[in-house]
């Protein structure tokens, strides 16, 4: 789709998150037959805020399309991963953000 708002200043919408897979729906297909997976990721980390460390914990719903969806559909709950993607509204009715994952790196446990 469109790369950004204009040629001079491409809009930025880029998220990267280390997270744990905590929920996942059954894999389904879009009407055109593309695999699609929805679920929820939980993030936990230490971050520096205004010069001081703090704990950060949150959950976000995600959407994942294509071969990656098929891959993640087989991953057990609790899998650790680093997800990259962008945020978009859940629907035209709900402006709440949902993470659309465009790439996944699985993290071996223990690291």
């Amino acid at each position, binding site marked *: *789709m*469109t790369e950004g708002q204009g040629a001079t200043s491409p809009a930025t919408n880029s998220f990267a998150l280390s997270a744990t897979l905590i929920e996942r729906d059954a894999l389904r297909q*879009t*009407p*055109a*037959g*593309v695999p*699609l997976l929805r679920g929820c990721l939980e993030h936990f980390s230490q971050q520096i805020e205004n010069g001081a460390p703090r704990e950060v914990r949150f959950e976000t719903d995600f*959407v994942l*399309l294509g071969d990656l969806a098929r891959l993640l559909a087989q991953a057990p709950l609790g899998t650790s991963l680093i997800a990259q993607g962008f945020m*978009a*509204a859940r*629907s*035209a*009715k709900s402006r709440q953000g949902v993470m659309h994952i465009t790439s996944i790196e699985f993290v071996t446990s223990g690291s």
Partner: protein
Amino acid sequence: MPQVTESINTPLPGLESTAANPPARLLQVALPRPLPALFDYDASGLPAVEPGQRVRVPFGRSELWGIAWGWRDGSDLDPSRIRPLVGCDDSQPPLPGNWRALVEFVADYYQQPIGEVAAMAAPPAISATRAERAHRRFRATAAGHAAAPSLPARDVGRKLIAALDAAGELNEAELRALSSRAGPALERLLAEGWVELALPQAPAETAHTLTADQAAALEALQADSGFAASLLHGVTGSGKTEVYLRLIEDQIAAGRQSLLLVPEIALTPQLHARVAARFPRASLHVMHSEMSDGARAMAWAAAQSGEADILLGTRLAVFAPLPRLGCIVLDEEHDPSFRQTEGVRYSARDVAIWRARHENVPIVLGSATPSLESLRHAIDGRYRWLRLNARAGEAKLPEVHLVDTRVFRATDGFSQPMVRAIESRLARGEQTLLFINRRGYAPVLSCPACGWAAGCTQCTANLVLHAADRRLRCHHCGAEGPVPHACPKCGNQDIQGYGRGTQRLEETLASRFPQARLLRIDRDSVRGREHWQEQLDRIRRGEVDLVVGTQLLAKGHDFPGITLVGVIGADASLHAADFRAQERLFAQLMQVGGRAGRGDSAGEVLIQTAQPEHPLFAALKAHDFDGFARSQLEERALLGLPPHGFQLMLSADAPELQPALDFLEAARRAAQALQVEGVQVYDVVPMRMVRRANRERAQLVVESRSRPQLRALLRPWIANLYRLRLARGLRWHVDVDPVEV
């Protein structure tokens, strides 16, 4: 009219009329042109031509096939402008006077161009002989066995008899494959009585014992001689068909023909099987619009020659000539399919009644839920009202229960009580029919991110998602295309189907009841008539547990194993704008509910609705058709709507709306100028679905409480409309007694 090349008689040379004198023989011809007139031609050159024959005429700079209608003494035309016939087709017998009278009635009553009515009502323009014979099956007779050894060894007839002896029975195509001279040989064998037509060997289905109601109805009907119209009003499963069969039996015994009309092609195989089993030696022919021209020509020839004892068909069969006609039976008389809403607009039910009167034979209209039009005639005593109030045999009417979906929320279309009811049937090994009157997966494909919905580019309508083959289809104009990979507006790939149709229900059932054997029946799942018959047989043999189906399944079928009928999504029809919507919904639910419990076990109908308090449901629960009909009739009387009022609808369509509106405005002024009292001319309005197949449409309704007054307006009005100037690409149609306004 299709092209015909065979046997055209051309005029004798030297007999063409001279321009100065009026022709000696003036023939009126019905031509398939959208004009309300017959055309005059000079028939002097074809002395043998007679009314009812197909004739070839010059028309403008080309030639057309038409039907010779009648002789005229004089013409309004300048004699020099009357052109001679080009030829006539005498390969088929002329269409009889009764047929022409019927066409004239339709042309006049419905104000449709007579040539177009004639073209629609005429048989396919091909010779029936070859088609007729391909289907016939033969077997050798005892005389044939005896005679064969005395025939020369190389005789084709001997070869055919030997082949028939070996195979038992063969059809003509198989026999012709044996020898290039098989045709004449077969004729000879038939003439000698050495070979005969192989009629079905199955023993005749024995007549059922009649219930008291059936016996009473039959007795009344058997007393008819000459025209009489009866409404056979029998609850579902009450054995209306048995009454029809008894009547037909009488006709066969008396050497008369029966015309049996059904609303849908889908219903013909079952009835056909039943009639054929009952009357194995009778000549039974089927006629409907999906048959090949050849097959239809064969049925037509059998009807017209008097060979057919029984003609079973859909609405177009009402026009088939039957020289020995003894009675007309029209089943499911309330069904809107008897109304043709495209091309020539007519109601086969009403045409059948006119025909019965014209040919002075009795007619029986059968239904569990008669149309309010017919019911009113029955109440007023114009039709004899025959009731069958009990189901035949042991079967009782099913219990009707409602599921309030405000209390029991439906997930994926199914409420908890519905799921439990299905489970209990599955546990008992009984069948369930789930009825939803929408085919496809979902009626709307939309993008949840931006709100885009897939619309038809040619119609004011959404495209329907068909998940099985990933296509979008317009159920109005037939346009289709692949499901887009992503939303064309915002690029979101997760576009979704909203609402549900048969395919989605099937998918949900498959995931909820993985052990159940599932069958979906709708227009998409049924591939051809044989496949359809096979599907029905699978249900009857108990090879499926759950059936998802549309109204295709609702009518007339007998499935003894179904004990539960679940109705999904009936509410949409409760508030449709058409004043007949409730009448139709009631009939449909009563019909589909009537599929439950026709066997030994009691049936149940479960209807999911958010409006269980609606009076329609109360009447349905009580099987109170009369109460429902009475309240509808009162309402219609109050509003002056049919059957307490009469309507005409003039519609116009064009590539753009404005010319259609302008034409109808002009038509409206023309109607008002006629100043017929007691007639209300409504405003011109765009149709609810304005755009269809790239044409924008508007309509104008004219109404009156008096049919004579409405008709007083109709003829001069329509005649005036033919004089109006038409914008480019504009078409208009008049609908007399429209079923949908």
